[in-house]
């Protein structure tokens, strides 16, 4: 059973005078159970739209979406789902405790269960000390953490996060990524959207790139990032003149800072390259494979779609 399944989901907005806007164009996407899936795209690509369709907050113009095998229109399936929206808005005057009570009650938990989960989650997101203070006194980061607690109160099998890192400081970001990793360890499925690629690289099993409503690419991250390198960047300490003459012959790119020289070579065979460096009697400090980074892949897809990156 797929955790999440978009089956040719299309969403078209008719904007009155401006005509139609295609937010999602035949989106077909699968997320497997137990994986972390990163849903990437520039602003306005349709990421939030797709997520809202999953939660039945928006209705698709055509096509269907499924959660854990059930159509998303079935409200009971949301008992097993947790959702954290981008910029969450909550009833301001509620306290985190009341918020979690609400989340638990609507997921069918009994009061003792709710209390247990609340205690655990509030300390996990470090809101224990303010658990009875109204949310309107919270900072943005605190509200986000409260939202995360709410998303997890029902111990969901699928966790959906819309731009979870946006607006958080490094501490907050670390908290979220730690939690996401822990969820994966527990066998949960995590589906999140982002445009901060660094976070994605560290966390995901698979990614999908969506631009202007069209899904351009889905791939396993390991596959993407373990393609054979196109070259190597070796940092060495050694004779500068010797390196310079060799670089002319082997079309290396050199850059020297202080005592260290960075060699950027298009040579694929690492051993051959190391031989060359060894012959020059240089000390090897660092070896980095040159591959297309996720950022480069991302930008490439955007350009293919004809969208100028902001």
């Amino acid at each position, binding site marked *: 059973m797929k955790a999440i399944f978009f089956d040719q989901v299309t969403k078209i*907005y008719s904007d009155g005078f401006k005509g139609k806007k295609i937010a999602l164009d035949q989106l077909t996407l699968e997320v497997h159970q137990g994986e972390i899936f990163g849903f990437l795209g520039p602003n306005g690509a349709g990421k939030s*739209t797709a997520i*809202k369709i999953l*939660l*039945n*907050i*928006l*209705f698709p113009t055509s096509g269907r979406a499924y959660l854990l095998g059930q159509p998303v229109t079935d*409200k*009971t*399936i*949301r*008992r097993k789902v947790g*959702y954290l*929206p981008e910029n*969450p*808005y*909550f*009833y*301001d*005057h*509620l306290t985190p405790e*009341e918020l979690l*009570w*609400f*989340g638990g*009650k*609507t*997921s*069918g938990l009994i009061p003792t269960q709710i209390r247990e989960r609340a205690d655990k989650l509030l300390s996990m997101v470090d809101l224990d000390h303010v658990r009875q203070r*109204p949310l309107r006194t919270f900072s943005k980061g605190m509200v986000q953490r409260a939202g995360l607690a*709410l998303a997890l109160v029902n111990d969901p099998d699928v966790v959906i996060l819309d731009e979870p890192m946006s607006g958080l400081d490094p501490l907050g970001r670390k908290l979220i990524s730690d939690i996401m990793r822990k969820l994966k360890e527990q066998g949960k499925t995590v589906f999140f959207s982002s445009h901060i690629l660094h976070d994605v690289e560290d966390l995901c099993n698979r990614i999908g790139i969506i631009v202007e409503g069209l899904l351009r690419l889905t791939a396993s991250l390991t596959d993407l990032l373990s393609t054979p390198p196109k070259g190597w960047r070796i940092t060495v300490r050694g004779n500068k003149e010797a390196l310079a003459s060799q670089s002319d012959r082997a079309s290396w790119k050199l850059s020297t800072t202080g005592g260290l020289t960075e060699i950027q070579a298009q040579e694929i065979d690492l051993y051959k390259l190391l031989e060359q460096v060894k012959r020059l009697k240089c000390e090897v400090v660092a070896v980095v494979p040159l591959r297309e980074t996720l950022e480069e892949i991302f930008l490439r897809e955007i350009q293919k779609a004809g969208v100028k990156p902001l």
Partner: protein
Amino acid sequence: MSNLWAIARITFLEGLRSRVFFGVLVIALLLFSSTYTLSYLFPRDVIKVAADLSLGTASFIGVILTLFWGTQLISKDLEKRTIQMVLARAVSRSEYVIGKFLGISLIIVSSMFLLSGFSSLAVFTVDYLTSDAYGVVHWPVFLFSLSMITFMLILLASVNFLFSSFASSSFLALGLTLVVYLIGQSIEELKRFLETGAEGSAISPVFLKVIKTAYYIFPNLATFDFKSQAAHGLAISSSVVVWSVLYGIFYIGVMIVAAALIFERREFP
């Protein structure tokens, strides 16, 4: 169902803790205390006037609060996107509508409870300080009148709910509800006035038809007005009460189910 109670409870808490609520209560207190002074501007029937004034104040403040909460808790829910917090849970659109309405009804009942207390206190004070020659307070009818005002406010809230479900702004929903309130209070009298044809004046039959149709569409709020009975201690016909309440329940039902229907198809981009 637990979903309904969950939604009702958070709606109730949210409404109760708003600062505007306390401000309005303070105004209510001021108005009630002025009941004492104003009553003596009237030569006869001091008690009747005191009852009139305190019931009038309770009703007036009640309408303000009902419109305020309708805006804050429903219209704003849609405007500020806080509704997504609720809909993302395992609740249906209809459960949202019913739960919210229950929450609003609860808060109306609670605040009317408070206002009834003030209202009764105001009248009691005047009664205590005035000789019985100027009239007595008919407490059962007085309290009954307050409960009917509460019921009327709940009906008004249901109208506001329906408007909020499709109006493009919270202000529009508020304005429409206010208009319905004004029409609802006068429609019965207007219809009667036109039907008896006072002064033998010729009323255009088209106009009469319009008013008759309006009578069926707009809520007849005058049926919940027992202020005269309370002020004069008149008897209340039980059949009128029964039909009034039944009518109110059906009207509320129509409003809420219509709102639920609209919500079932509503999206929140």
